[in-house]
């Protein structure tokens, strides 16, 4: 009886479930695959997860409020290409360039919010149109060639390892702390959730729908920009298409973490292990010596299978 109630509680706690799943995969893989369990390899997995985790932070907020942001991939690309171009030469630290790039990313998110809140364009259309627009603009600006980064701060972010911990992971921890606080300890978190679950009831309860949507989408743009910056630092190069893989993975991480794709239910605490799980499975697929096409097919099927196994979307 007690065991049953434990399983029941576990099933009702998707973040914990995803965490346990990650732990299980790690243990099994470490025991069966040579080199998987090495400290350096696990650290590398976490470093890659940080990028997804940071994009998915904004995606979590937007999905919680009942929307979706299909422009995060494009925003990452924009940041990765524009940051080297707009970092002024007179600033040796590179912080001015970072601030400018993040400002642009947040402004793109803000415009998504405006389209959604005031022009009443459905989130899917608004953010998809924004992504298409940005991709076109980038081709015009960058002309298809890769841009190398010289910004000191960004290079540091991508390579520094204070006390052996990559700076990207530290950035992710900070982001996680802030986002968890935002969702669980600040009024806006409860408002976003209420908005996602029942916008009409939330509005009649005095929740400012437009204001909270704007904040949600702006933050999503900001976090995508942050992730783009980290990716640029790790890659040393920005090019058109660099952000593309992160659209699908950010949404998958959110949903794997037990957040309802319909909005109104979930937490970033689930997205964190969701991101790690995604990178881990990608790493495992890479070990199997398959062609790129097959890897993609396997990755897609795996996400589908994971979602089915965890049976996340409870009926309403």
């Amino acid at each position, binding site marked *: 009886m007690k065991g049953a109630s434990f399983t029941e509680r576990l099933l009702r706690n998707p973040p914990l479930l995803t965490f346990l799943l990650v732990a299980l995969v790690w243990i099994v893989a470490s025991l069966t695959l040579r080199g998987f369990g090495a400290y350096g390899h696990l650290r590398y997995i976490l470093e890659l997860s940080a990028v997804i985790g940071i994009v998915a932070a904004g995606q979590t907020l937007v999905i919680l409020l009942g929307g979706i942001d299909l422009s995060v991939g494009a925003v990452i690309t924009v940041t990765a290409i524009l940051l080297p171009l707009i970092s002024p030469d007179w600033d040796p630290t590179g912080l001015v360039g970072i601030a400018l790039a993040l400002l642009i990313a947040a402004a793109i998110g803000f415009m998504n919010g405006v389209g959604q809140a005031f022009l009443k364009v459905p989130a899917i259309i608004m953010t998809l149109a924004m992504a298409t627009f940005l991709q076109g603009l980038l081709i015009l600006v960058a002309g298809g060639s890769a841009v190398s980064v010289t910004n000191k701060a960004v290079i540091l972010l991508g390579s520094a390892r204070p006390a052996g911990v990559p700076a990207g992971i530290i950035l992710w921890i900070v982001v996680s702390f802030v986002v968890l*606080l935002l969702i669980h*300890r*600040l*009024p806006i978190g*409860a*408002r976003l*959730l*209420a908005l996602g*679950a*029942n916008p*009409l*009831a*939330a*509005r*009649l*309860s*005095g*929740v*400012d729908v437009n204001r909270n949507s704007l904040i949600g989408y702006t933050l999503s743009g900001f976090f995508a920009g942050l992730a783009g910056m980290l990716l640029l630092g790790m890659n040393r190069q920005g090019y058109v298409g660099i952000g593309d893989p992160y659209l699908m993975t950010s949404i998958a991480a959110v949903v794997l973490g037990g957040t309802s794709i319909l909005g*109104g*239910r979930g937490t970033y605490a689930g997205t964190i292990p969701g991101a790690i799980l995604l990178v881990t499975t990608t790493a495992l697929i890479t070990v199997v010596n398959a062609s790129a096409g097959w890897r993609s097919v396997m990755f897609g099927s795996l996400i589908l299978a994971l979602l089915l196994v965890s049976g996340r979307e409870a009926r*309403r």
Partner: protein
Amino acid sequence: MDQATPLIEARAVSKAFFGNPVLKGVGIALRPGRVHALLGENGAGKSTLINLLSGALQPDDGEILIDGKPVARLTPASARAAGIAVVQQELSLAAELSIAENIGLGAAPRRFGMIDYGALSRRAAEICGLVGITEPLDLPVGELSLGRRQMVEIAKALFRQPRILILDEPTSSLSAHEVAILSGLVRTLAARGIAILYISHRLNEVQSLCSHVTVLKDGVVTADQSLAEVDAEGLVRLMVGRDPGEVFPPRGTPSGGEELIDIEGFSAGMVHDVSLRARAGEIVGIGGLVGQGQEDFMLGLYGAIDASARRAMIGGRPGPFAHVRAANAAGLAYVPADRKKEGLVLPHSIASNLLLPSLGTLMKHGMRDRAAEAGLVARLAERLTIKGDTSRAVQALSGGNQQKVALAKWLPLVPRVLLLNDPTRGVDVGTKREIYHMLRSFADEGKLILLISSDTPELVHLCDRVVVFREGAVAAELPREAISEEAIVGAAMGLGAKDRAA
């Protein structure tokens, strides 16, 4: 006639959900030509019993007999084939389809495998004449008011020519006029030998229409008898299991408090040119046929829809308000009629629903003060006698308790003007009584209460003053001495006060 074989009978049926028994050995027999009332508080098991009789659920134990023969496994399809039709409380119409298409849905006459629209509209027109639907039959149902949709739902059930008709709170959204039509219809159908099961929280309707009553309390039958043998108080006692006390609280003396609403030439939605003054300490009832602008009036006051006015002071501030937050700041709170869609965030916990309007007021170090919030939730739950764990999803509560949550969540903001849109619809008698007493105590504390109600006795016995709406304007304003069911219904139907005085 009571000796005729029951058309459908449940014998000692039991049903449990996840180990919680909902029905325990319940029996009911519906006989031809009899209007049988089914009463019980919310959560007593009425809906479950209906679902068993209509084949939507299977009993765990006991049996169901049709025409005296046991049925092994009643399914919705076999129930339909046996002539059982249910008019659900939750409407099940397709908003995009026309009235005629909805009425014929799933049972439309066919010719060469295609829907025979000619035959459909002939038969639908016949039935609409019977239930008093005068709208053009090709009108999409989505354009009808809630009350008219309810009538379409009834027409849809009759289209299948049932032998057994189950009406689950058919009058909860009907106007007095429509209730009268429905009552006549029920009598006609009973006279034709149809067995009718009538579920309602309105005891006067039950007493005037039904001849036999089954009372459910906590999943068991506490009474199965002729209605002639029991009076209204007796029925309430059977449902509640204790002496109900006065349903309506005594009215105090009007104190002449501060003027909280003073509007002139107020227009919003279908409401035009309404003037109203109301003071703290009053309960002002808003009556009329369903859909005459009462709701638009409230939403306009609340800043939820665009409104204009020649002059408007609401809660001591110049209005009308541009948005809900401005209305909240002026001390207004609104409790919607549709608590599931508009009043509550159903999948969220009772606690988060209670906290939603007051988020941001209980803060410590710039963050939500969890301890203070828990204290507030506990106090609210206690004051409104919401029992049990407040971390449960609010959708797990019964209708009455949900309504209490929808009301309670505003109390921390100490609203001075409560706008209540039909707060007792679908609420059982015990909880209704609690709500009435609560509203009176709010008024005594110096709040102004505006109350839209589809239940005329509520307007008559609870309110200090009643404003009757008709076609978006005030048709009559009745001071306390002039409030009566006749006066309210008369004004709602468009009879001038002078005509009746003569």
